[in-house]
């Protein structure tokens, strides 16, 4: 194809998106669109999958059967989210094996929040409330994104997320209204998860490289800072309601803006974790790669069995 032809295809492509048309897998798309989507969608899938690890850590120790079935169902949902997203990513012409390979070799990133440890049961409450809460804020606008398979996957994901956040907040309510020790445990979890949750919404707008292009392709509808503000404004009253204190001395209602002002975020910590130096990065990758490798014989056996059955069928 000549440069000119590509230019006019690109122009037509951008116009389609501007008209709110969806792009489907076999449609022509600029190479950059394909690559950006493979990167973002697979990162998203990896985050769902690695995100099971910190919570999976507490399934066997959930304090009641009610909590255990809820946590099991939530973690199973996250596996489902990972699978919706991986298969949506595969429609862009990349194989599942390549995607796993990228995760396992550290070439692909996943959300840095999952590199923090879950030390107490209250962390399970804090994750559902804050981490799934922040995820919802990130994900709702993606239900309208331009790439059809991604948008459809996100609609399914968003439908399921609401229960995740509610079960987490319910855990926090119970603990906050419990014994002094339980309340302290809830506060401690909030203290540890608050700042990483704010970081989860991404670098500040002046440091964010992809925003403008992402806006055009509807991979983003609001900037990171806008999303962060939205998260803070909706979460602070929820903390107030159960008598927990947001660990930010600079947090203050700003009448004029109709929003909360908040203190500075430790972006050095964020970049350290992104670069692999968070408290649990190594552990998470070890668990993930280990599960993949230890499962190899099962995958092989299933394939061998399927082939044997097929052969037998043909012989009859």
């Amino acid at each position, binding site marked *: 194809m000549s440069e000119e032809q590509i230019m006019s295809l690109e122009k037509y492509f951008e116009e389609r998106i501007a008209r709110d048309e969806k792009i*489907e897998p*076999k449609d*022509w798309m600029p190479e950059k669109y394909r690559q950006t989507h493979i990167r973002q969608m697979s990162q998203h899938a990896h985050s769902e999958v690695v995100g099971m690890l910190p919570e999976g850590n507490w399934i066997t120790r959930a304090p009641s059967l009610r909590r255990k079935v809820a946590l099991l169902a939530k973690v199973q949902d996250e596996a489902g989210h990972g699978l919706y997203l991986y*298969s949506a990513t*595969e429609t862009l012409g990349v194989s599942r094996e390549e995607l796993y390979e990228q995760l396992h070799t550290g070439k692909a990133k996943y959300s840095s929040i999952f590199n923090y440890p879950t030390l107490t049961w209250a962390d399970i409450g804090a994750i559902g409330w804050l981490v799934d809460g922040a995820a919802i804020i990130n994900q709702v606008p993606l239900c309208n994104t331009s790439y059809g398979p991604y948008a459809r996957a996100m609609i399914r994901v968003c439908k399921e997320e609401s229960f995740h956040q509610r079960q987490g907040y319910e855990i926090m309510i119970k603990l906050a209204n419990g014994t002094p020790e339980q309340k302290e445990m809830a506060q401690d979890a909030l203290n540890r998860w608050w700042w990483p949750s704010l970081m989860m919404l991404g670098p500040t707008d002046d440091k964010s490289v992809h925003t403008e292009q992402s806006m055009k392709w509807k991979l983003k509808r609001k900037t990171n800072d806008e999303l962060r503000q939205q998260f803070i404004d909706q979460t602070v009253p929820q903390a107030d309601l159960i008598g927990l204190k947001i660990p930010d001395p600079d947090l203050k209602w700003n009448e004029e803006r109709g929003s909360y002002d908040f203190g500075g975020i430790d972006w050095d910590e964020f970049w350290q974790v992104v670069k692999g130096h968070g408290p649990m990065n190594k552990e998470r990758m070890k668990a993930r790669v280990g599960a993949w490798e230890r499962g190899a014989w099962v995958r*092989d056996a299933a*394939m061998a069995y*399927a082939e044997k*059955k097929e052969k037998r069928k043909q012989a009859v």
Partner: protein
Amino acid sequence: MATKDWPLWEIFVRSKNGLEHRHFGSLHAADAEMALENARDVYTRRNEGVSIWVVESKHITASNPENYGELFEPAQDKVYRHPTFYDLPDEVKHM
């Protein structure tokens, strides 16, 4: 290292009787039976379906968006296929 990767399957789910099967997404499985079981877990955790079809992705033949014109344009100028094409007096009822 896996000797051979599990193939990809397309999943179609009937939400309830009376509705058609609709494409829900895809997944990997060693064979059709496993694809059905996995589809149950991946796509119907909340009563989203009463029936599932699975078909290996390689068996689907899809039209090419580049041929959109030759395939679908012939239908565009056939307004006489629509009821509003026909002029009837307003007095005619139930038609």
